[in-house]
């Protein structure tokens, strides 16, 4: 959890410069409420404070036509959306880990341009929108869309109850806001923050930019006319440290920067760093950040980069099942049997005939033929889940070929615009390497980086795939699972080694799989196929395909034939 002083400092910075934005990680609880309350108390009276619900629709987010007012007034009346209503204050994004990429992109555009542009339902508006975004991130396995995270400066971690959080007084905030634009940031200070960001493995430029902004807010709050060392430290602690993807190099060590260039360029690089006048300054900034780096960072890094964002690019307008697919326009028809009336289109249709129908002022004559209903397109896309056995036995056999096979299938998925997900099975259990995503580039990168070795917890692979497939189904998509394994299970579900137990567990899991009736295929990657793999495939109701015969063409045809 963020320590109490940092909560106070962060609340102060947000009050002075709402545009910094904030991500609050952790479930709802006393601490989260305390922080939000402290922030709200520090804001000037009357500042907007709006909550953005998860399933927000475009008309509520961006604004649109106020139909009731339009009909009453006989002229177009626009209705402002949440973004415009939050102008001058904060927009609280509830359950930020669940909002979809489209909503995040709309909020991001408003943040970037300081205005919302809506071109909707016959209305064309441009409204000022200078907002701060607070993303309440309760995600455990999911993270909010990166387009949003990238633009949020401060990060808090909250849990349970905690101490009191006191923000600055409203007067101090007002004075600091007036000072804000005049605060000087020296090039050396910018250099220090940029260097510190790189050393912590933070590559997006916006992070460093937000750190500079935070330092300025800190100086303004302290009544200084220029950014001082302590401001840089605050910025490093609140903005940079929570984003670190690697530990900064220990002090006094001229380690090459992350993603070091080839050795021959190493020499000038480090000497250049020594010449940097801001060297010592950036060291102190790093020191401040290191003090608050989460203790589990090392463990996370050791565990293979758990910090990597898990939020896949959920591309396109993937709507939740409740909305029954994506609206794709309107058609004539009656609103019955679950079909939804599109009021606006209906009125449009009726409008042209009003004079002919002899409508009197204030009344709109709507006939049966005018009714327009919404058309939805149900998402029928497929998510192909690859479960790759990267255990020692498979690695010895043909992990490379298995990867090659997956690549072939990926090309097929691209053509069909499927989403893909990647699970690896090795060591003690299964790991989700890539949550469902439409980005095949990422899938390929992920696959290339997949190491081999360890036991074969095949049962765990089935269980993990089952969970993932269920999630995919909930999103209204069809899962399709391809297992690539040699079938030599030797780790049971409880993590204990031993072939008999492992095989029994794998068979049980396979039977459970069959009950789920998800389409599946088992590609046997063994050089000399073992009967157990076949047995497993039969138990799971999966199509069995030994790799020796599975050349490119057969594999493609097999996947094509699955749905």
């Amino acid at each position: 959890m963020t320590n109490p002083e940092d909560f106070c400092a962060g609340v102060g910075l947000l009050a002075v410069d709402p545009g910094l934005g904030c991500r609050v990680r952790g479930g709802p609880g006393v601490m989260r409420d305390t922080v939000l309350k402290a922030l709200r108390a520090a804001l000037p009276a009357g500042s907007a404070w709006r909550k953005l619900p998860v399933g927000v629709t475009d008309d509520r987010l961006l604004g649109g036509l106020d139909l009731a007012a339009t009909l009453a007034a006989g002229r177009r009346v626009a209705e402002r959306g949440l973004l415009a209503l939050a102008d001058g204050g904060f927009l609280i994004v509830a359950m930020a880990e669940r909002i979809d990429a489209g909503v995040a992109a709309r909020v991001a555009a408003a943040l970037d341009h300081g205005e919302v542009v809506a071109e909707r339902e016959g209305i064309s508006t441009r409204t000022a929108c200078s907002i701060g975004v607070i993303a309440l991130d309760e995600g455990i396995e999911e993270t909010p869309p990166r387009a949003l995270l990238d633009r949020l400066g401060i990060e808090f971690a909250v849990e349970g109850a905690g101490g009191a959080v006191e923000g600055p007084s409203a007067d101090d905030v007002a004075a600091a806001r007036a000072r804000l634009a005049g605060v000087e940031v020296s090039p050396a200070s910018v250099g220090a923050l940029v260097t510190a960001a790189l050393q912590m493995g933070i590559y997006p430029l916006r992070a460093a930019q937000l750190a500079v902004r935070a330092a300025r807010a800190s100086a303004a709050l302290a009544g200084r006319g220029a950014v001082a060392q302590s401001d840089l430290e605050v910025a490093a602690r609140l903005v940079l440290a929570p984003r670190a993807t690697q530990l900064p190099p220990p002090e006094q060590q001229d380690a090459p920067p992350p993603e070091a260039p080839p050795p021959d360029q190493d020499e000038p690089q480090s000497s250049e760093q020594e010449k940097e006048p801001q060297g010592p300054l950036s060291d102190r900034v790093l020191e401040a950040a290191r003090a608050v780096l989460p203790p589990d960072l090392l463990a996370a890094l050791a565990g293979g980069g758990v910090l990597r964002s898990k939020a896949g690019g959920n591309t396109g307008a993937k709507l939740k099942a409740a909305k029954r697919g994506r609206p794709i326009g309107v058609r004539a028809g009656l609103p019955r049997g679950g079909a939804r009336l599109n009021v606006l289109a209906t009125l449009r249709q009726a409008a042209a005939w009003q004079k002919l129908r002899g409508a009197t002022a204030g009344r709109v004559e709507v006939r049966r033929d005018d009714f327009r209903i919404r058309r939805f397109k149900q998402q029928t896309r497929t998510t192909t889940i690859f479960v790759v056995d990267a255990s020692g036995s498979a690695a010895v056999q043909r992990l490379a070929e298995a990867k090659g096979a997956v690549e072939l299938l990926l090309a097929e998925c691209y053509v069909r615009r499927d989403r893909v997900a990647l699970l690896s099975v090795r060591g003690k259990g299964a790991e989700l390497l890539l949550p469902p995503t439409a980005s095949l580039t990422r899938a390929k990168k992920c696959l290339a980086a997949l190491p081999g070795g360890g036991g074969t917890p095949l049962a765990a692979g089935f269980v993990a795939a089952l969970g993932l497939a269920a999630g995919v189904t909930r999103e209204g998509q069809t899962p399709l699972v391809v297992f690539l394994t040699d079938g030599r299970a030797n780790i049971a579900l409880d993590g204990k080694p031993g072939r008999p137990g492992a095989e029994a567990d794998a068979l049980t899991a396979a039977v459970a799989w069959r009950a789920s009736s998800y389409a599946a295929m088992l590609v046997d990657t063994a050089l000399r196929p073992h009967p157990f793999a076949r047995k497993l495939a039969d138990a799971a109701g999966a199509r069995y395909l030994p790799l020796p015969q599975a050349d490119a063409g057969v594999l493609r045809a097999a996947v094509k034939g699955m749905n």
Partner: protein
Amino acid sequence: MPFPFSAIVGQDEMKQALLIAAADPSIGGVLVFGDRGTGKSTAIRALAALLPAMQAVSGCPYNCDPATHFAACVAGCPARAGGATPPPKSVPVPVVDLPLGATEDRVVGALDLERALTAGEKAFEPGLLARANRGFLYIDEANLLEDFLVDLLLDVAASGENVVEREGISIRHPARFVLVGSGNPEEGELRPQLLDRFGLSVEVTTPQDIPTRVEVIKRRDAYERDPAAFTEAWRAQDTAIRDRIVAARASIRSVAVGDEMLTEAATLCQALGTDGLRGELTLIRAARAAAALEGRAEAVSADLQAVAPSALRHRLRRDPLDEAGSSVRVERALSELYPA
């Protein structure tokens, strides 16, 4: 007040591609794909502020060119309502944003609901495509755009004409615009059909060296603190770029392209196995625009080599898994064709 174009640090390929599209709108648009926070949309908005004004029929919702107005005029155009020829007017080149969440009626235009309800008139209310005529249409996060809107844009971009048949309205109006798209590949792939429609495609990455990163942030910070002063400080450079665009537009038709250049372009495209002739055509046009921007009267082989990655990388035979490598493939072909 947008960020000045000339103050954008680095990203030379992106800036050059945008200038080429500004100098020769027939190039077919620019696609900018890459990392977040690299100034993609900043550059496009900056370009808008830079473009020289153009002449248009005053009162015409389609920004019609006074020279050709009556030949192509749309029925019911309010500019012609008086019968007399309206005076031409100097207007900024439209750079229209297609905001996310835009509805189809605002994009293509629709029945004017207000006039229909109050006056009982059936009038067409032009949409964004009309506004973008003779200018630029910018789609940020192009890969998040709804598929049906993409289809619509493709159709219009290809034909240069928007055909509206809805709500009892039947109208066609000119919609010639340069399509500029930007996005992040991690949000998902762009539909292959859309990819093909762009003349140039550039990849942007976050700079990795500290001095550049410091410079980016310093300028951004200076701009945010005092946009007016910052823009003023860069005005001279921006004006110089505008002058280059104006000069290039005037001279582009007379820039000579030798037969050996055509051969080079064909050889390069053949080596890369690009489909169709569009690659060669774009390559030649882009090289010609690049030479015009440099104020030269003849395009040389160096121009061709400089624009080849932008003109060709998205036209290589589609292997999505090799996407990262398509720039490399172009570079390789170039180095084979032009040994140093």
